[in-house]
């Protein structure tokens, strides 16, 4: 089994598909980082124009003022208990910024690295994974080499399993590069720090409304870890689905086309048909897992991180089962 996976990885390396994916990552991250840099510069100048102060030097004053205000609010007896933890979290963040002399308006590599993945998780990351996964089986079918693999003294399920495990490894590699590259590239723009800054998370949905009562601060590095872990899960699910399509369809181009259009359609669906109940069971609608961490999701009753994960898990396991059943039974006619 081990050597089978090695075979698959070596094929992947030689095919240069992985290299291509990494090249796309480099290009996109660079553009994204430059854009972020540019826009944060612009915000700074806008701020200084509008307020007559230079945001970079005067942010202390602003933050101090905000902090006092927040503390006053926290002491207000008329405040709901559930609002208070949100306030506390905000105070902690400001205090941290003041204590460590970090301008909250400034970007950091840590923030960027996280933000990049949060922005990529529902479309860009899946596309990269699709590029890798769609070729795994259909690539061999279209070149005819699948025959060579299946007439060895290795059962078919083992061949497919080795391919599937290779895909999982590659997903991790893609995330690894996404992380390392965005850290390095954005570090050049914004500096390499920011890994201990507190980030608010722990939002919940109670009775159809965003509930902030259990909000807490976690260090940026832990938050980033969680974001990338969820991204890995998304990659795993999207990978499994495109893997299945790759098993079912003989041509790589067709299998990329099918899964990509599904994905893009999913983004439409989640936008236009959000009150249609059945859409929440579609995998494309559930890809924005990191939104549950940052609390930026559309509050829809019944949609929680756990729900989304279970839906995605259902899709992934169905795909895997179909892949294996079909692959071990089908007649190879190429």
């Amino acid at each position, binding site marked *: 089994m081990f050597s089978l996976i090695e075979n698959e990885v070596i094929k992947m*390396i030689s095919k240069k598909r992985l290299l291509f994916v990494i090249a796309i990552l480099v290009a996109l991250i660079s553009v994204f980082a430059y854009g972020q840099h540019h826009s944060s510069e612009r915000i700074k100048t806008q701020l200084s124009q509008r307020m007559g102060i230079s945001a970079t030097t005067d942010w202390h004053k602003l933050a101090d003022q905000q902090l006092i205000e927040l503390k006053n609010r926290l002491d207000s007896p*008329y405040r709901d208990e559930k609002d208070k933890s949100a306030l506390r979290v905000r105070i902690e963040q400001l205090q941290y910024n003041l204590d460590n002399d970090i301008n909250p308006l400034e970007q950091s590599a840590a923030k960027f690295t996280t933000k990049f993945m949060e922005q990529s998780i529902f479309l860009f990351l899946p596309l990269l994974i699709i590029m890798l996964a769609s070729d795994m089986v259909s690539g061999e079918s279209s070149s005819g080499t699948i025959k060579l693999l299946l007439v060895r003294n290795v059962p078919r399920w083992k061949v497919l399993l080795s391919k599937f495990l290779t895909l999982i490894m590659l997903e*991790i590699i893609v995330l690894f590069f996404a992380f390392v590259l965005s850290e390095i590239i954005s570090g050049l723009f914004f500096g390499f720090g920011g890994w201990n800054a507190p980030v608010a998370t722990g939002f919940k949905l109670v009775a159809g409304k965003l509930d902030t009562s259990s909000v807490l601060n976690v260090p940026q590095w832990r938050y980033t870890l969680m974001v*990338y872990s969820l991204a890995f899960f998304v990659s795993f699910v999207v990978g499994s689905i495109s893997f299945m399509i790759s098993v079912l369809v003989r041509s790589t181009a067709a299998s990329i086309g099918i899964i990509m259009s599904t994905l893009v359609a999913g983004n439409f669906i989640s936008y236009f048909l959000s009150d249609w109940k059945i859409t929440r069971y579609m995998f494309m609608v559930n890809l924005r897992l990191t939104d549950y961490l940052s609390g930026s999701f559309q509050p829809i009753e019944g949609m929680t991180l756990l729900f989304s994960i279970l839906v995605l898990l259902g899709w992934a396991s169905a795909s895997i089962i179909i892949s294996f059943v079909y692959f071990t039974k089908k007649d190879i006619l190429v």
Partner: protein
Amino acid sequence: MFKKSMWYSILVIAFVGFVILANGFYQAILVTTQANPQPTSESAPLESAADLTPSSKNPNTIQMLILGDSVAKGTGDEKSKGFSGYLSEYLKNNTSKEIIADNAGIDGLESTGLLEQLQSHRLEEQLTHTDIILVSIGGNDIRSILTLNSFDKENEFKVRLDRYLSNLKLTFKELRRTNPNSIIIFLGLYNPYEKATNLVDSQLLNSWNFNTQQLVETDGKAIFIPTYDLFKYNTERFVAQDGLHPNSAGYQAISNRISRSLEMIIAGL
């Protein structure tokens, strides 16, 4: 061999990565499903609320309750005084009376929220003992429609205004049920975006204020304090750095206006 070493590094990265990511995944589930580990003091607000409630009625003190949104609360005032501060300052200097103010303003409160706040009876205690009730509400009801396009805007405006007015009616009813005698001071809306506003927006805001005033006037012991005119040519001077709330000078200006309207009444209290 180059490919061989690449395979080994991929293997190691993938393995280590998997362990780390699995751990992170577990944490992510934990953090979104579990309750907050931070201690929440459930009883604290009740105690402090009790402390603030005046126990005795002093003839030289006036009880005031400030209700409503962030403007009521005093957000934006860099001196953190708000209405309670400026009003009591004024009264101290000009009359023999002293104001004890309770501020129950909440940032971002809309008319619906205010009504809920009152109907929850959390403020019952303060309400019954208060002499003056200062209300600032409605700004958040109307604010979000400004970004809509002009076609949607007018329709949406009507919907919001209707809802707001019916909320306001119920609010007054609720206030009067608890405290039939206090004086209610109702603040009108100003336009913080004066420079960037077109004619239609101004008309909408004026019609909002007009309707509000009509409603306020139906209550015999309520006065409507306009702020629109005060801010119209003074946005630079009176609006805080956040571009929305009044600053210290702005609060001061509104307070002056309130004080002058109240002078005679207060003297009689």
